[in-house]
């Protein structure tokens, strides 16, 4: 990454009483990156953000901003600003006073403040709202004020704690794109906390997936989605079919997994896989197709019976049951669907997907053991 690291967490642990919120995590976030911390609630993503902002101090390890160790530097002396989940706009101040607050703290002249506040409000497309109070604004407008209030200080890093969580779906989608474009424009490093995997995939340059105080995987959205490092990541990001089985043969780069009596699927080898291990084979619903005839070499093939067909507009989901009882989902784009979905019901069909679309996870990987 050119330009060095904007933020670095090195071996950071945070313990609240008896709860370990962060367990020895290390992250490097590059200059100008849009970096997301993604995970379910309680995974430690917000705690990480609060450590960077300076609201909490690490129990062990170090937080570096712009290469400088933060130690016990209080929040008001750190070159970062935060957009809070509930916006935390000061209710007793107008929009102008809210946005001007940070500049006032830096003792900037009144004239400059007026100009910069105006520019910031323009940037978030809220000009002319200076005199309003936060209560008189809609949720989306409050969100923009919070953004302007943080960005006006030109921080090295902007921390965003689920800033879109309180907005309705449509507004959220629009704001996602707007935030992304804004970040391109200002060139500031964004660290974005969210539990919404779709949001993280849409906006981020890189994502850290967290669970139970651990970082499970760091990578681009593409890497995370296509090559999930753990079963948890595979399950948490997008939709996944998880098929349990046991490795029965290994030929160079391909492992063969038996589900039940003679039914076998193939998947690319992963380190640590040995014959006889219990594994889970994961495959995305959109990678599976319904086939009339057996596919060419290099494809997995399995029979299943359809028990439900759900029309979703852009796609159709087909729910199937394997002989072993495992339920699979197949998603087909509604481009040119050959058969009427209703005709499929109760049918026995063949499913095929490329071997490299499968991922293998050991049951009880070291990471999962660590969290148990």
């Amino acid at each position: 990454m050119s330009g060095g690291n904007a933020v670095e967490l090195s071996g950071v642990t945070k313990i609240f009483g008896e709860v370990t919120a962060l367990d020895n995590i290390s992250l490097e976030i590059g200059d100008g990156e849009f970096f997301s911390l993604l995970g379910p609630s309680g995974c430690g993503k917000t705690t990480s953000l609060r450590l960077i902002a300076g609201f909490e101090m690490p129990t062990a390890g170090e937080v570096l901003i712009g290469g400088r160790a933060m130690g016990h530097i209080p929040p008001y002396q750190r070159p970062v600003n935060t957009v809070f989940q509930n916006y935390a706009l000061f209710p007793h101040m107008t929009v102008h006073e809210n946005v001007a607050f940070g500049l006032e703290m830096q003792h900037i002249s009144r004239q400059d403040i007026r100009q910069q506040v105006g520019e910031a409000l323009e940037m978030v497309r809220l000009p002319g709202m200076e005199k309003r109070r936060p209560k008189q604004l809609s949720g989306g407008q409050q969100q923009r004020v919070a953004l302007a209030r943080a960005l006006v200080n030109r921080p090295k890093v902007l921390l965003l704690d689920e800033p879109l969580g309180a907005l309705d779906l449509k507004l959220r989608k629009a704001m996602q794109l707007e935030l992304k474009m804004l970040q391109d424009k200002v060139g500031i490093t964004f660290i974005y906390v969210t539990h919404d995997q779709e949001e993280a995939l849409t906006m981020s340059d890189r994502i850290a997936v967290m669970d139970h105080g651990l970082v499970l995987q760091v990578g681009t959205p593409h890497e995370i989605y296509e090559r999930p490092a753990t079963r948890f990541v595979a399950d948490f990001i997008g939709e996944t079919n998880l098929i349990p089985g046991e490795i029965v043969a290994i030929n160079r780069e391909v492992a063969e997994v038996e589900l039940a009596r003679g039914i076998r699927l193939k998947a690319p080898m992963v380190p640590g896989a040995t014959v006889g291990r219990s594994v889970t084979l994961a495959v995305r619903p959109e990678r599976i197709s319904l086939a009339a005839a057996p596919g060419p070499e290099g494809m997995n093939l399995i029979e299943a019976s359809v028990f439900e067909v759900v029309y979703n507009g852009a796609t159709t989901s087909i729910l199937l049951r394997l002989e072993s009882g495992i339920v699979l989902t197949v998603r087909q784009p509604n481009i040119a669907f050959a058969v009427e979905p209703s005709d499929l019901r109760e049918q026995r069909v063949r499913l095929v997907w490329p071997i490299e679309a499968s991922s293998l996870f050991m049951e009880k990987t070291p990471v999962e053991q660590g969290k148990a």
Partner: protein
Amino acid sequence: MTGSDDKSGRRGPLLVLPAAAYLMIFFVLPLIIVLVISFVERGRAGGVRSPLAPTIQYYIRLVDPLYVGIFFKSARIALLVTGVCVLLGYPLAVFIGRSPPRLRSPLLMLVMIPFWTNFLVRTYAMKQLLGAEGGINGLLLWLGLIHSPLSLIFNEFSVVLGLVYGYFPFAVLPMYASIEKFDLTLMEAASDLGANLRRAFLQVMLPLTFPGVLAAIVLVFVPVVGAFITPDIMGGGKVEMIGTLINRQFGVARNWPFGSAMSLALMVMVVAGVLYYLRSSEEKERPI
């Protein structure tokens, strides 16, 4: 998160120290003195005997049927007043809570005004109404229904009426606070599930608004059981309650130790009641 709480460990006590010191000297210490005085003999001309002479005679005197009777009477009056205030106040609170939002704050204000009005002034208003020359007798005489004034005042009835009048707003306000928070669609849900109005009230609304009722009970019972002003003015010296009894020990009777013993007994009674309330309100709030 409470992560930013107490970094120095010294600032909290520093903020609290002035008030803590003040209350130690001017509230806790005086109570300790009451405790001590209740165990020493009185002086011949009031005050306490010098040098101090320990005794428990005042506590023995407390269980004299005469005084036990007054304690019981005070408790009985307080229970009666509390019951009347809560039973009449709850429906009033419901009425205010269910009236259209536009009317709600004026109605609430009608309860607030007496609450903020000088207690003496209101007690006096009631005394005037009931007195021999007061409004009720005046009206009855003018109507020719009676020929000489009825004695409506200076009896237990007038004291109870005065206390209800004085403490009624204390009962309405906390119950209103609970009822306002109560979600009326829960009543609809109950009736949808087949409960009639009575059952829906008893099984849904009352349990959920009970914290307000408990608060009302405490806010009325505690001051009433130790009341002095109302029994003194509305009872005219003819209705004895604990408050008037204690007052007499520090006035004409000049028996500070006995008055102290009585005060402690009253305090124990009240504090025990409040502790009981705190415990039961904790239990009540758990399922919510």
